[in-house]
């Protein structure tokens, strides 16, 4: 196994664990943790490709890092909005359990 493949598989495992968190957790914050793991899996993948794989390192390795920087920036923005909405839900429901979000049905 080349290092690149190892990194790819590690990223994939992280992604799937994040997905598991999103699917299995009832708590909205815990679901958000899963999403963050998925995003970080993408970051790891991008950097691994940038370090080992890409054909044109001078340009493309940078594009891996750039992508990760953008992911981090966007994740921060997303987390801010998500946490604000979760707090708003909590104000009404006194709960952050996804199963309790049952006002909208049918």
């Amino acid at each position, binding site marked *: 196994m080349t290092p690149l493949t190892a990194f790819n598989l590690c990223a994939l495992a992280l992604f799937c664990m994040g*997905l598991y968190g*999103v*699917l299995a957790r009832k708590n909205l914050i815990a679901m958000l943790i899963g999403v963050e793991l998925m995003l970080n899996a993408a970051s790891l993948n991008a950097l691994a490709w940038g370090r080992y794989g890409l054909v044109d390192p001078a340009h493309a390795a940078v594009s891996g890092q750039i992508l990760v920087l953008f992911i981090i920036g966007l994740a921060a923005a997303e987390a801010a909005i998500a946490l604000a909405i979760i707090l708003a839900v909590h104000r009404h429901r006194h709960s952050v359990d*996804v199963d309790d*979000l*049952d006002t909208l*049905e*049918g």
Partner: protein
Amino acid sequence: MVLDTPTLTRLALAALAAPLCAFAIAGLALRSRPRAAAALVIASGALTALATLAILALADAPIQQVWTWLRVGDTDLGFGVLLDPRSRLMGAVVGVITLLVQIYSTGYMAHDPGRTRFFALLALFEWAMLGFAYAPDLLQAFIFWELVGLASFFLIGFWYDRPEAIAAAKKAFIMTRVGDVAMLIGLVLLFALAGTLDIRESLDRLHSLLQGHGITSLQVEVAAALLFVGVVGKSAQFPLHTWLPDAMAGPTPVSALLHSATMVAAGVFLFARFEELFLLAPLTRSAALLLTAFTALLAALLASVQVDIKRVWAWSSISQLGTMLAGLAAGGLSSGLFHLTTHAAFKALLFLSAGALIHHYGTQDLRALGRAGARRDRLTMLGLLVGAAALAGIPGFAGFASKEAVLTAVHDVPGRAAATGFALLVIGAGFTAYYVGRVAFLLLRPTAAEPHEPTPPDAHGHPPTTAMSASILTLTLITLALAFAGPLVASLLGQPLPELALAHAVPGIAAVALGLAVAVFDFGRKSSAPPLFERVPALHGLLLRGFYVDAIYQRVFVGAARLCARALHFAETRLLDPAADGLARLTLAMGEGTARGQSGQLQRYIGVAALLLACVALWLGFAE
């Protein structure tokens, strides 16, 4: 005199534009002025009737004029008119009958608060049907076909505060939709096979493609069969027939229109329009012949036991539509369309006169109508009897010539299927005569009140207005005149009516005579002073007075008929109705299931999406 092409095209456009404009203006601008709306709609109807009659009488070669609207690749999309003998005949039938029904409605609907809406919808109905009759391409035909369905949906459910009207409208919509879906598939298949939307060109191409082995005969059979399913739905043939009797929940003028020139006639006209396609599909044609002949018999049997006058006519429509379609399936284009024409006149007449009685006496029960003194409405009864005679196929009346033409056409087709169909049709004709006689006797010679008195007549009835009487009288005259229109229709369509040989005609006439005779024995006997009754025993005394004959008749003939009718009724209420309901309910239940799956199960949905992605990944992983 023959008009030139531009004039005829303009006439056709005017005939189409008038009802549409009337619908739009009456529906949008005249909502609070019912009299103006009625006047406008009738004026447009008169214009359309005149234009369609002129097109019928003053045209020569087929005309096709299409204005392209959009062009995608090689396929043109446009609006146009096709004026060939078939559409000219159909258009005139639609124009004239609709006008008469509209005039009649001014009296019948005079006290209904929603009559503006009613007249607007009548105009819409006429426009849709005329657009269908004149449609030169598959898509336009389908669109107007759907509009016909839509307009009848609104008209059947016109009294939207009556649950049975809503239910009937829904039933009609859903059941015809079953046929429509099949038909749409058939049309798309036809388009895919022939590569053009133009109806006549597609039929030509189909013919040459079939000969050049560009397509298989199976493909043609499938397309024809799918179209026929559409016909079955629209023309209320077995097994998609149950919506039509329920459609009685609409106002009577609507029934008159629905059963004669529009809606159900659309199915028959579709068959006639695609006659060339059906000629290329012998299997479908035989099946269609058998099915429609069977429907003709079945509906006639059921009509024999109804006490609601509108239901009798409803079942009789199904039966007569079966007869027309059998004629068309036998290749008798002119006999089928001739029967369509005569039927349009006499069925409209029957419904309008029945409506006049209902309007006057406030009941739809035959026995109650008879006891209430229906026979005193002389003009109405005259119209009803002329229509009844035509329906029964009494020689000298309109229905006789056309029905015999159909029977002969079917008889002339070789093969066992046609022979069976012929037999079914003949028996059906006998029962038709029987129930027509029964209605006539119940109205003319009321029996004493039965212990379970049906709903008492409504004291607030209104005698027929002048407009209603005028319509009925006009239709009576038309019906009488149409008895001699056979050769005209035949020469118009370019296909002579089959020769009326004695050998073919005898079974038909005999069946009618037998049916009438049985009706006379069954319903004419108990009356106190029977002038008919005295003449009949002089002819058939022996047969009538014999107790056993009567019993045998009761048991075998009527009993069997009743049994059959009951069995069929059972099959209908317990099997077909639930099946139709079930289909509708299944669709709705699936909708409910889909919506239920939604209940806050965010993760379930993310899970489904992820699962599908996992399948993609697995597939890709293994594919390599």
